[in-house]
């Protein structure tokens, strides 16, 4: 069997400020094409884990192999080349509010654009066409020239997805992509992620709050508690006792339909 696509080994992260240990000795691996869902209470280290993978957060200890390359040792220039293959979408969308939807989508190409062109905002014709195509794909072609702050939450997250699509990613990190959305919109956004996973073969790592969403979309689930791995297995394996273990005794499962 070939090496797994992503391997996380003994990953530890201690935040300097406050001496908080966010991740403790975490190890797991992800095969290409998986849809891995990370669950856990808030503060359990989900965001930190995802951000360690593209090194928005510097890991304190441990190794992360992506396609056999240890990303924790890369120089910042080489890390940038790795990052452009990793798309990321965020809970708070992190769009540039004052820019148009297409302006936001085009920033997904920044990793492939020479610095001087990027500074002047001269994206190539091919990139512009690709941006329109990706907006079409998330159903926002008619909003291309609308400012991002005029869009609704679901539309904003779809712009975020289109931005990630521009990178033509192999790996997509989604940090609570639907926590700021209502249930109906949540499903539409999750379906775009599922589509990327199935049709483009993008490996997806998504952190989610709701177990029901995790069961519905994930091919595999890992659970974090206080920075430690407490569960790793197929969605079906999480029963009531497991659930109580992950979320604490008082927790009650909530369905999102």
């Amino acid at each position, binding site marked *: 069997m070939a090496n797994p696509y992503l391997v996380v080994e003994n990953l530890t992260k201690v935040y300097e400020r406050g001496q908080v240990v966010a991740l403790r000795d975490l190890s797991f691996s992800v095969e290409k094409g998986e849809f891995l869902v990370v669950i856990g209470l808030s503060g359990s280290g989900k965001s930190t884990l995802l951000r360690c993978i593209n090194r928005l957060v510097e890991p304190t200890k441990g190794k992360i192999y992506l396609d056999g390359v240890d990303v924790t040792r890369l120089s910042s220039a080489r890390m940038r080349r*790795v990052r452009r293959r990793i798309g990321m979408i965020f809970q708070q969308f992190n769009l540039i509010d004052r820019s148009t939807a297409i302006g936001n989508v085009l920033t997904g190409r920044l990793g492939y654009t020479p610095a001087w062109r990027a500074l002047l905002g001269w994206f190539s014709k091919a990139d512009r066409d690709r941006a329109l195509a990706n907006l079409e794909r998330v159903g926002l072609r008619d909003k291309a020239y609308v400012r991002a702050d005029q869009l609704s939450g679901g539309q904003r997250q779809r712009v975020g997805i289109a931005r990630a699509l521009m990178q033509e990613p192999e790996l997509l*990190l989604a940090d609570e992509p639907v926590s700021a959305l209502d249930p109906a919109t949540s499903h539409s956004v999750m379906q775009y992620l599922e589509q990327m996973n199935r049709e483009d073969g993008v490996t997806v790592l998504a952190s989610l709050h709701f177990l029901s969403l995790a069961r519905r979309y994930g091919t595999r689930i890992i659970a974090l508690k206080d920075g430690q791995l407490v569960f790793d297995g197929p969605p079906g394996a999480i029963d009531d006792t497991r659930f109580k273990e992950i979320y604490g005794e008082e927790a009650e499962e909530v369905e999102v339909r």
Partner: protein
Amino acid sequence: MTGYPDGFLTDPPSLSWPVVRDALARRAGIAGRHLAIVFLDVVGLAILWLLVTYIYAWYGLGSIAYTLVPWWAFVLGVVEGAALWESFGRSLGQRFAHRELSGASGVPTGGQRVLYFIGWHLTVLPLVGLFFDPPWHERLSGLRLGPPVERGEAPRPWYRTSSGLFLAALLLATAVAAVGVTITTTNLRRLFTEAGRTAKFWRAFFSPDTTILAASGRDLVVTIYMAVMATAFAVVVAVPLSFLAARNLMRGPVGRLVYTVLRGAMSIVRSIEPIVWAIIFLIWVTVVRAPFAGVLALWVHSIADLVKLYAERLEAIDPGPIEAITATGAGRLAVLRYAVIPQIVNPYISFTLYRWDINIRMATVVGVVGGGGIGQRLYHYLTGNLWQQAGTVMLLIVILVWAIDYLSSRLRAKLA
């Protein structure tokens, strides 16, 4: 929940560097708080004593004096006063630090307070005792300087607490001293008898001297351009500097140094009024080029002010877009261009307009020292006792300042 994981505190060997560092930091914190309280009390009492003697000397002896006693007696008195205050009342410093003396069994007894008072000298004066946990005087008296405890009884009104009384005395003494040195009876009498002197001046507001309107109008133009030029050139300098003066962008030892030096320098420049800058520049470029000197003065002051405003805005930007753009694999400059700049353009423009508005006012003032523009004309009229003309010019200034104020606030409201 300490935020530490199980075993994190006990696992490492007991004298590892983090443990020592933490212990030192905690003790330094305790000592620092005690010292800050003592410092505030001593300074507060010293100021009160100085004020009282100042008033006595001013009214009683007709001169200015500060202590009236030898300096060692003054220091001794103040320190003893602080010790008494901290032991037997709730001192100013304790109130500011949200601390209160309390015994193991509630309210401290008199004996404990006396012990605390004696221990205070042994601990605070040589300083060493403060680095123990708990400090010596607390251990000796069995009292603890902790957060105030709720005792379920109505708090005493402020004028019956020692710190309230102290503040009242301090404010009263300051007011008396201030009245004493700033207001004299001759001046006060003139306020009521000499109002007629300004009559000409007020009349000019309603019947301006029209012959000087054209010339004053051109001076107004100069004033406006002074503000425009000073603001424009200040922006050119302040924008790049603001990036170096933003704490969140300047990381690492070198960055922190640059940040500190820049912010310090800017706050020094800012605390010198533009008028003083104008004096310096008038000597530099000679009085012949008065408006130029005025522009330079406004320029320097505007840079310092704008750097502060800009940098504070930069420190408040949303880190989300920065994360997102970095995650696409963009370089540092692209992150600046796409994640930082869009967030700051409008606030920067708004601050610039605000500063332009201020510069218009300042330009009229700077003229008074010879910095050109309408202010200089006003000063000529005033020194020449040409009251009606002076009144006319002031009327023009009021109109200009008003108009610009309105314009800039309308524009800023649009930008927000």
